[in-house]
């Protein structure tokens, strides 16, 4: 506090005309992402602590079915492309260009990612890898499943906005808010992949 107490600043209100730094919707999503980052950090640190406690670093347990490392790597690329397409869609929308096709393509790839993940889960379950098998399996399903739910949630958000985009009622803030969350779920996946699969 300066000595502003006795020297009223007459020009104050006029200075407030400056534009907002961020749209409220985007700011809200960013704060939510902050909480999500901590949530995933909790899961990841729990995973790493459990892993560090395994004697002689035999991880995952040798009697378990092998995780589909290669197909998931390809799937990771699909998800990253989806994130890129949606980023381009927001850019196009910002420049008043055609964004619908890019957005729909991005959402489709997101859907492909979820479908492939689900297919792999069915395969693993049929090989007898379920949550009760070991702490490793518990963590695998928990972390990948949590991420899968986030992907589905992100897709629902995106599709809501895309529907408005098709109708021509979407705003930049809405599209950006959905895309920012999507970027988060896309970008956290490679980290989870490296940690859990490799």
């Amino acid at each position, binding site marked *: 506090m300066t000595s502003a107490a006795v020297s009223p600043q007459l020009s104050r209100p006029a200075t407030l005309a400056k534009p907002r730094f961020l749209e409220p919707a985007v700011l809200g999503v960013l704060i939510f992402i902050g909480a999500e980052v*901590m949530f995933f950090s909790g899961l990841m640190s729990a995973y790493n602590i459990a892993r560090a406690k395994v004697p002689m670093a035999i991880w995952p347990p040798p009697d378990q079915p092998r995780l589909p490392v290669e197909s998931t790597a390809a799937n990771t690329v699909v998800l990253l492309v989806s994130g890129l397409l949606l980023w381009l869609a927001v850019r196009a929308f910002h420049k008043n260009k055609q964004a619908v096709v890019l957005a729909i393509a991005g959402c489709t790839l997101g859907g492909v990612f979820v479908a492939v993940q689900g297919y792999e889960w069915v395969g693993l379950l049929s090989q007898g890898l379920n*949550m009760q098998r070991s702490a490793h399996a518990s963590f695998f399903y928990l972390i990948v499943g949590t991420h899968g739910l986030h992907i589905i949630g992100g897709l629902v958000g995106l599709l809501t906005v895309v529907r408005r985009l098709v109708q021509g009622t979407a705003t930049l803030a809405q599209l950006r808010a959905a895309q920012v969350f999507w970027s988060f779920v896309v970008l956290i996946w490679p980290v989870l992949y490296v940690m859990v699969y490799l």
Partner: protein
Amino acid sequence: MSATDHAHDDHGHHEQQNFFLKYFWSTDHKIIAQQYMWTGVFMALIGGFLAYAFRMQLAFPGKFIPGFGYMSSLEYNAAVTNHGTIMIFWFAMPVLIAAFGNLLIPLMVGCDDMVFPRINRLSYQVFLISAVILVSSFFVKGGGFNGAWTAYPPLSANSDYNMAPAGSSLWLIAVALEFVAFLLGGINFIVTAMSSRAPGMRMWDVPIVVWMIVVASILFMLSVGPLFAGAVMLLFDQNFGTYFFNPERGGDPILWQHLFWFFGHPEVYVVLLPAMGMSGEIIATFSRKKLFAYKTLLYTVFATGIISFFVWAHHQFIAGIDPRMANVFTVTTLIISVPIAEMCFLYIATLYGGSIRLKVPMLWGLAFVAEFLLGGVTGIFLGASGADIYFHDTYFVVAHFHYTFVPIAIIGFFMGFTYWFPKMYGKMLNETLGKIHFWITILGFNMIFIPLFFTGMWGDHRRIYNYSHFPDLVKNGIMQDLRIMATVGLLIMLSAQVIFLMNLIKTALSKQENCGPNPWKSNTLEWTAPSPPGHGNFAVMPTVYRGPYEYSLPDRESDFWPQSEPPDADKQA
């Protein structure tokens, strides 16, 4: 940034609502604040009743408890567990953060409503569902959860140990839902304070309580994730036979303690900061003096927030953590007492030389600082790992954290409630009844917990339901006397609340005129709105010209200068 450029789709059709839509389906921040507040108070009554039941059992073991009956050991554990859970998650959190945050943030930053009103409504609805689930968990087979509010596995993870299979899962679901509710609310608080401030209100013109609620919300956002992850894992362990916390197949029970306390300690500051902020507002207003060192206070709040993420393991000194780690956490724990002490000093400096008016809100505000200080000082012993080995899990700990949480939750509630009551309802509470209520409550509160410091130091372990089974803890006659004294203190404190209820009824029935917008002659923006504020809050959306604490300026006739009063208007003042 006024009413016009907030595209709230709910606006405009609020006038012709029926009772249900107005009070149960409203997106108005003031209604949601009331919902949170009265739900919280209702839950506090349940929590208080549980405290009454188990304190009676401790004072008169095995005797009939009026209103409860005979208490079994399982019921005792369930009562203690749910008392703690309710008081923190269903009373302190909804009242201090959610109710006062909802009420004060839009009014104090000068906007018409929260940025996301429907998310706000959803937040309360999720919270209400969580409260219903928690209360219903008392009545399922096996009774309510009884593994303490910290829910350490393996006790919490396996119903063979806790004998409450349904209760423990319902408890966990309720807590998780409650986190979701406050996550939604907290996003609203932060975004509203960031992007909806009245024209002219710079960051340093925001009243301190708004800052503190925002910082508390940020702390909550950043700390709740790991516990949410832990809660999901514990729920899976309970119901799907996974091994997250089960060492049998590679899990780790200590992991839960880390996830829990990583949230649990910042949580202390999540509930502390709003109460601290309210007492700051009240002390400045009733000292008729500028809040001392506004920016320093703010920096100490930020420091508290940051350091609070590095102290959690002081709850685990005897849980088998590495002693070298214990040293580190001892140091960080002692460091965090510095900013908290600084806040108290700044408030005392605000009082110095002020024209202090001992109205009821001021009494509560001063009591908050004084009593919280006792809680803080006793925390030094527990934060030092060497002393904590002896104090851990004794009644000294119980007394310590009640000296922090009772000022925060109960004194904090009364402080905010009595101060903003005229704003919420347009009437003034009775001062005499308010003062009687204040003194008896404070007397009762100290009478409960001062004896417990002594019993704790003399070795009372905190998780014993019948001390007559432990001859060395009753042999020394005074121990049981002190336990009875604490119970009598609780009865005094609980019965004092009847006076509060009388005050409410008397005020509600009284024919007094509307108290006007600014009965306390305070500066912040909420006092320029009508009492109670209508939909959209302000008759004229305010513009801010100065900081919130311009009291007793030497060259002005009136001793306050509202934030929204134009500079040339003081010629008439």
